[in-house]
């Protein structure tokens, strides 16, 4: 099954590169992926998004309303010792992920966002956030935030989630 897993993983990444207004992002995503990137985490956080909606909240990395969290599901690493793009000390980023598309009100563009999970410690428990724009069920893993994307880590416990901007969605895609 290992070779099968690899095959599926590659095809998933390929699919993720092709799907949802991407292309440009693909290249960008690949670079980032190689660097650290991947995944997001999952697990339904039913109705845990905090309401706010103010302009300040839209720009606040510790607010569930932050624009780039449009499809995140988990604890915000920015509330757990990390940032929107860094895992907290002592944790490890997941090597697989899924990707969402979020609208940045500051420049009016849509961006590809990689929702990586940070792994190896138990739940952070702070700033739970569940938003599901364009999110799809588990049978579409490249678009799903219900899976534990720490699943392939040596330490697969889930701690928190980051959101890494991969690049703008090309016009017309």
């Amino acid at each position, binding site marked *: 099954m290992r070779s099968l897993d690899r095959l599926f993983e590659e095809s998933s990444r390929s699919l993720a590169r092709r799907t949802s207004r991407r292309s440009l992002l693909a290249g960008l995503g690949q670079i980032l992926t190689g660097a650290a990137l991947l995944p997001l985490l999952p697990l339904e956080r*039913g109705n845990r998004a905090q309401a706010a909606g103010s302009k300040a909240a839209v720009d606040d990395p510790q607010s569930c309303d932050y624009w780039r969290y449009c499809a995140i599901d988990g604890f915000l690493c920015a509330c757990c010792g990390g940032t929107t793009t860094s895992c907290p000390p002592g944790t490890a980023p997941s090597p697989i992920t899924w990707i969402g598309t979020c609208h940045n009100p500051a420049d009016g563009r849509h961006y590809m966002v990689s929702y990586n999970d940070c792994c190896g410690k138990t*739940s952070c428990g702070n700033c739970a956030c569940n938003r599901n724009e364009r999110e799809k069920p588990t049978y579409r893993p490249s678009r799903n935030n219900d899976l534990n994307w720490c699943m392939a880590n040596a330490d697969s*416990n889930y701690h928190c989630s980051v959101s890494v901007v991969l690049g703008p969605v090309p016009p017309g895609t």
Partner: protein
Amino acid sequence: MRASATFALMLLALLTGALTRADPPPPLQAEQLTVAQLPPASPHWVYVFDEAFDNEIDARVDLFDGDSYRRLGQIDAGFVPGVNLSPDGKTTVVATTYFARGSRGTRTDVVEFTDNTTLAVTHEIVLPSKRAETVPSLFNVAYSADGHFVYAAYITPAASFGVLDPVHGTVLGEIDTAGCQLVIPSGPNRVSSLCESGRMLTVTLDEHGHESGRAMSEQFFDTDRDPVFAQGIPTPSGYAFLSFLGEVHEVDLRGPQPVFAAPWPLVSGAEKGVWRPGGVQVGAIHRSLGRLYVPMHKGGEGTHKDGGTEIWVFDLASHRRLARWQVRPQGLAPVLAVQVSQDAAPILFAATTASDVAVFDALSGQLRHIEKHLGQTPWMLLN
């Protein structure tokens, strides 16, 4: 007279005191420490899946009685588990993960069997470290209809499933499902999975649990425009899957290939895209009455995990909506999960975003009880 009355009262007080002193209450008897026994199983029991989201390595299942409103006991469930019941209801199966050092260390995936008459774990089967770690559904781990096999969904994220022998405690094999996920059991030896293409893969097993055939269905829903929730609802002939926009896809799984009924809507034309189902366990069906219960809310794209502010009741035969039960005026937060007992005096259970579990008369909609904080994050109800 006043002096006489006072004297009489004093005498009475003295006598009473004397009596009291002479007749102290008996001492408490020595007590026996015991372990409580479960009463006989009831159709009004419900097993409440608690993800324990803030500390996910400690999920559990609480057994709750919808008549006495008492918690009867607990089954431990580890990290992001899959949970289900055996066809006879006598066993709870938990597919879970443990780490050697509590929150870290070597990962062990395991399926544990609990005797529902004692709530004690009877035995386990160690799995390859591939178990699907995802939100609860009836299809993360499941029994065959005759109880002969247990199926465990694997996602690495490559999709496959394990076939287990629950009696002998062995893994019989692993079957690749080529991009289709979860284990939807039917009959004694078939497993279906939902595919990224909107199709359903059905694998047939031989008596040894090995694959003897497979069939891919036609596409029965659009995964982009209107995907179905993965949480299917058992029907007499298979399962009903609800779509994000409120279409009901009934699937007959009695044969080697699924048969799809024409989908029908929960919402009118005016309601479509406005009202929609949402939550985690998005529906329950009383199979002999043919009633479907769905938590519904007002919302747009991306609200498919929002809880229901109302519970809508439908007749499965006529597709007619029978009732709309508002939950907020009754002191309830939005509903994330519903389950209905299958007896003639049915109870509807509803778990909310406030972690409460409400008990309704499933025929009239009368709210009978709210059990506050039944766990931390109750996301699925089983019976």
